[in-house]
């Protein structure tokens, strides 16, 4: 089965719909959302509705720190993120807020574990940004594949038979076989706010039959998203970030 993993949608309607179109063309059998559906972007309601539709159709979804911050204003956020969340919160109808508040922190599907940030203490929202930060995730689960988001840049780590952790440069678009002799941790790229210099929506395809991962990028109308961000009066840094992808 082909599983599409979407993370860090961040209220970006254009990016999410481009990714969903791309998935539709590839006979994706199941969706997984790793959270941060809202925050930063100008279309949080539309994005939450789409993810709720996916969940109603069998998708797995976990909670991100921005989703959590809707119900918990005490969540630690940088000033730009806080401004965007304060703008987002009153727009969401109660049903959407309940949906975000009710999401679990981790989910398992077969021998894969899904979580927004580091699997080690998921509620601490630790960024998996290197081999050192990846190791604790391998230590808290026996899952053969861990997939997280939160970093906004795609990355791949493996843990060999002796417990050593290696970082690998992910190749966009190339199928990466998950060697059975290792355990793997993939950081999916952000759908709605990539930060690796490529202003395209990122997501991950996991082919359970072929036992392969593909990091995908999909072009979307960044100009339209930037226009909406500016029209909504959100911080200019957010529009620039969407346009530059960093």
């Amino acid at each position, binding site marked *: 089965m082909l599983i599409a993993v979407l993370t860090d949608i961040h209220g970006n309607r254009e990016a999410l719909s481009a990714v969903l179109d791309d998935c539709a063309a590839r006979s994706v059998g199941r969706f997984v959302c790793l959270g941060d559906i809202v925050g930063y972007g100008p279309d949080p309601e539309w994005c939450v509705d789409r993810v709720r539709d996916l969940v109603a159709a069998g998708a797995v979804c976990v909670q991100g720190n921005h989703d959590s911050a809707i119900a918990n204003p005490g969540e630690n956020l940088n000033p730009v993120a806080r401004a965007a969340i304060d703008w987002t919160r009153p727009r969401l109808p109660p049903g959407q807020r309940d949906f975000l508040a009710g999401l679990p922190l981790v989910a398992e599907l077969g021998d894969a574990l899904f979580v927004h940030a580091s699997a080690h203490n998921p509620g601490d929202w630790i960024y998996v940004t290197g081999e050192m930060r990846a190791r604790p995730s391998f230590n808290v689960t026996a899952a053969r594949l861990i997939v997280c988001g939160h970093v906004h840049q795609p990355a791949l780590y493996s843990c060999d038979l002796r417990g050593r952790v290696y970082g690998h440069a992910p190749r966009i678009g*190339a199928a990466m*076989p998950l*060697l059975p002799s290792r355990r793997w941790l993939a950081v999916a790229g952000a759908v709605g706010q990539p930060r690796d210099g490529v202003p395209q929506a990122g997501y991950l395809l996991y082919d359970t039959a072929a036992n392969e991962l593909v990091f995908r990028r999909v072009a979307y109308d960044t100009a339209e998203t930037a226009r909406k961000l500016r029209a909504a009066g959100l911080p200019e840094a957010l529009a620039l970030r969407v346009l530059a992808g960093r």
Partner: protein
Amino acid sequence: MRVRPQTGLEIDGFTLGEMLHKGGFATIWEVTHPDHPGPMVMKVPTILDGDDGPTIVGFEVEQMILPRLTGPHVPRVVASGDFARMPYLVTERLPGASLHGLFDTAPLPVADVVVLGRRMAAMVHALHGQHVIHLDLKPANLMARAGGELVAIDFGLARHDQLPDLLAEEFAIPMGTYPYIAPEQFLRQRDDLRSDIFALGAMLYQLATGRLPFGQPERLRGVRRRLWRDPEPPRALNPEIPAWLQEIILRALEVDPADRTQTAAQMLFDLEHPDQVELTHRARKERRDGLWTVARRRWRMSRLRGFAPPPPLIAAQASRAPVLMAAVDLSPDMESLSERILQAVRDQLAVRPGARVACVNVIRTHRIGIDMATDEAGNHIHIARLVALKAWGAQLGLPEGRVTFTVLDGPDPAAVLIEHAGRIRADHVLMGARAHSATRRYLGSVSSQVVAEAHCSVTIVRIPAAG
């Protein structure tokens, strides 16, 4: 629960037969499986107790790369197993043993060396076209199919440009087989397809002379010497070796990858056109360089930390030095079209300055008619066409080794062109098409058949219709 391989062991439906080979890092077993007909072998890495990193990673690399490769030049993968019970890789069983024994009988007659050289180059070209550098080419890693095509085995040190390089991440020492390892590989560069060209050169040297170009070093220090010490010229060891073959061998063994034959396709091209190999100082070399030259080179090379890196993608490296095939009709009414084809070739050379050009002309023969090889009239036509073709191609102003001229014949010109493009591994065919006519629309043209059936890019040159 871990198990060890032994005759009679059953794992995932495979039954182990006798052990066929025991190497340093793995054992090879004959296996059968009720669902998989045909002879198969199982490779089982020899994992010693405790920390056995190199063997494990080598096996992982092969398990990752080999299933992605297709075609006659690699063994077909049937199944693989992980470390939970017993790591293994099952592939089709190839006939006979490796070419190791054949190399022991070297020197071989020059004609045999050339045939083997072409087959080795075709094999390496097929790997490079699939994003893979083998990095451990040697006689023991070559096998042959019944039809003669060579098959590369053991991809434990290989590099796939779209997959992580687990070996580079794991080890700091150079990996390869000492007699055949390229200088840049010794300097731990694992991303250059020209490392395989070097190994091809070392094997050709061995086949032609019966000796290894750099001896059989036992330590890394001995391997390092090839950065400054040149091998004995092949013709000094075996005077029967023609100058052009020495040129091909020594060019493949150049220390700096930039000075080497750039691709396996180019080496194949040279081996297919021996009379058109550009002969340089390498062909004329009679003895090894003098002590003073070597000492100066040693001083320089011992400070070298690496060569200029090649482009990141193996496919891009292979296409930087492409083979262009220009098919041209030299009949009088096609003169202006042949000029346009010439210009199209010039344009290609401007963007691909390392390209070689194969100029080709086809004589259409009738199914029953003159035999081009023996008939006097046929021979005359052949020579006249070759002269005209050379005059046409000379306008490109390319040096001798970069351009070749071939006159082909056959009843079906398109089929002849397609077959030739395949044989010389052309990357790109440039040819002309006549202006539209009703007959051609119904009967089809040579160019449209080439476009439809050739295995490479084809550019059709046409004179725009007036008005």
